[in-house]
């Protein structure tokens, strides 16, 4: 966020880390300033110009003190306009998800450059050795500098295309493949960071439907965290809806409304908006007590049109089965013509459940065996084994 003026992320990070430390020391006593982000960035920017001015003064920067109430920005910072500062963060997000950077490094780069995470923490979340992650981050930052990747918010004409990788990278922070090795606390904290990034991004872009869609998707998924467990797998339809966070559901529904409001007439729904609507339909069970399976089927049909991935197609088969019975779902599963289907765990788990529901126990047993053999997550494996055992 501070890198735009100097194009030097490493320096900006140092300054930001300092500001964070300062904030952590100050806030507990003085209270949170009106605009915490603005405050942090302003402090960090002052810090940065200091380094550029004189390296020797680095250790003796006259950091401002918050006034007693902590309700206003510290006096020496009045000359900067905090409202302008978030724009810089937006520019940095676009730089981190620039098409010229390897897609795999975009999320880690955002975590480091925008949120100030250390390479070791990011490495833990991605189940990589810290040295490897640090090396990849350094390489990416050098590439930004050497290739001259600009710190700008792309023009309206190219914004939709350039926004997609930004959204993907923020989503990537939410949907890290956990490899079964990251501790649940790391997982939860990364999901919270993704939530913060997505909502901030949507607010800064103001009227981008897909940005609001992503914010809604992550918020609504987070609302179901209380029913998630590292030890036991509980399928979505069987989760206790009363335990979900009603505050996050309300917030997510608000984001989803914003997405719909700012979508231009006739513009197609985006992938994240549809996925958020699917989450919203599931979350509505908390209020209504029933699942609107017809609405879910329609939403999954829309998702397959926008994003015809193998996962989306298998999910559609499951949604159709929920609404119209197992035979209709199996028919859709059989119609999927993709060689990857044979080793796609969700396809086998879905097939097994639908065959069991249709009373075809022998086929169900075989499908469960295949699904189990492809499952490396132990709680999911246990659950599938229980389902298979019920067939007798």
């Amino acid at each position, binding site marked *: 966020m501070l890198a735009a003026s100097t194009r030097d992320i490493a320096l900006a990070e140092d300054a930001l880390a300092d500001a964070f430390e300062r904030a952590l020391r100050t806030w507990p006593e003085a209270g949170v300033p009106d605009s915490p982000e603005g405050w942090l960035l302003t402090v960090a920017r002052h810090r940065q110009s200091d380094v550029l001015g004189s390296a020797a003064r680095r250790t003796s920067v006259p950091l401002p003190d918050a006034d007693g109430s902590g309700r206003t920005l510290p006096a020496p910072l009045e000359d900067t306009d905090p409202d302008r500062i978030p724009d810089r963060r937006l520019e940095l997000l676009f730089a981190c998800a620039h098409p010229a950077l390897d897609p795999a490094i975009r999320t880690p780069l955002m975590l480091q450059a925008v949120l100030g995470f250390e390479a070791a923490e990011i490495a833990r979340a991605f189940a990589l050795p810290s*040295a490897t992650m640090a090396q990849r981050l350094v390489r990416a930052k050098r590439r930004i500098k050497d290739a001259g990747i600009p710190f700008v918010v792309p023009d309206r004409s190219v914004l939709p295309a350039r926004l997609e990788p930004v959204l993907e990278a923020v989503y990537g922070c939410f949907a890290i493949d956990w490899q079964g*090795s990251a501790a649940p606390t790391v997982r939860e904290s990364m999901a919270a960071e993704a939530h913060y990034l997505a909502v901030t991004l949507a607010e800064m872009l103001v009227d981008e439907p897909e940005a609001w869609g992503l914010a809604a998707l992550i918020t609504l998924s987070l609302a179901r965290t209380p029913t998630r467990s590292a030890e036991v797998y509980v399928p979505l339809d069987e989760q206790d809806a009363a335990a979900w966070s009603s505050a996050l559901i309300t917030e997510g529904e608000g984001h989803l409304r914003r997405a719909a409001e700012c979508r231009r007439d006739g513009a197609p729904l985006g992938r994240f908006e549809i996925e958020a609507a699917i989450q919203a339909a599931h979350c509505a069970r908390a209020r209504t007590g029933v699942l609107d399976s017809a609405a879910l089927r329609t939403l999954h049909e829309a998702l397959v049109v926008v994003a015809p991935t193998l996962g989306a197609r298998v999910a559609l088969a499951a949604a159709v089965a929920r609404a119209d019975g197992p035979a209709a779902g199996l028919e859709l599963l059989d119609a999927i013509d993709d060689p990857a289907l044979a*080793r796609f765990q969700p396809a086998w788990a879905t097939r097994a459940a639908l065959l069991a529901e249709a009373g075809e126990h022998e086929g169900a047993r075989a499908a469960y065996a*295949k699904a189990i053999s492809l499952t490396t997550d132990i709680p999911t494996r246990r659950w599938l084994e229980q389902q298979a055992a019920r067939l007798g």
Partner: protein
Amino acid sequence: MRYTLLLHYPEMSLDELGEEGMAAGQEAFRSYAAALHAAGVLIAGEVLQPSSLTTTVTAASGTLQVQDGPFASTKEQLGGTFVIDVPDLDAALAWAEKAPSVQWGTVEVRPTATHVVDGQWVEG
């Protein structure tokens, strides 16, 4: 069917890896082994010492030679093996994809031709 997962990766010293990096790697392998065990597919798992501790023995040239160092001096070395018993290649690949070192090296998946039980070679 039995498969051996052969883990190849560039070797890193403790200095290069750092204490924390080493701890994270050990935790990843602990968790992986625990999952293989809990799934009931693990036959054996070995993580090897660095290839600099290898001694290579050969009589292929006619005379017996005992040499310091690995057979092939390449950037990536065999760092560990897991022998697993799973229904088919799809399942073996599912586990290979979850091996921690797939993130920084390569994992070869090889079906077993024959293995020893109670001193006797048996098929598969």
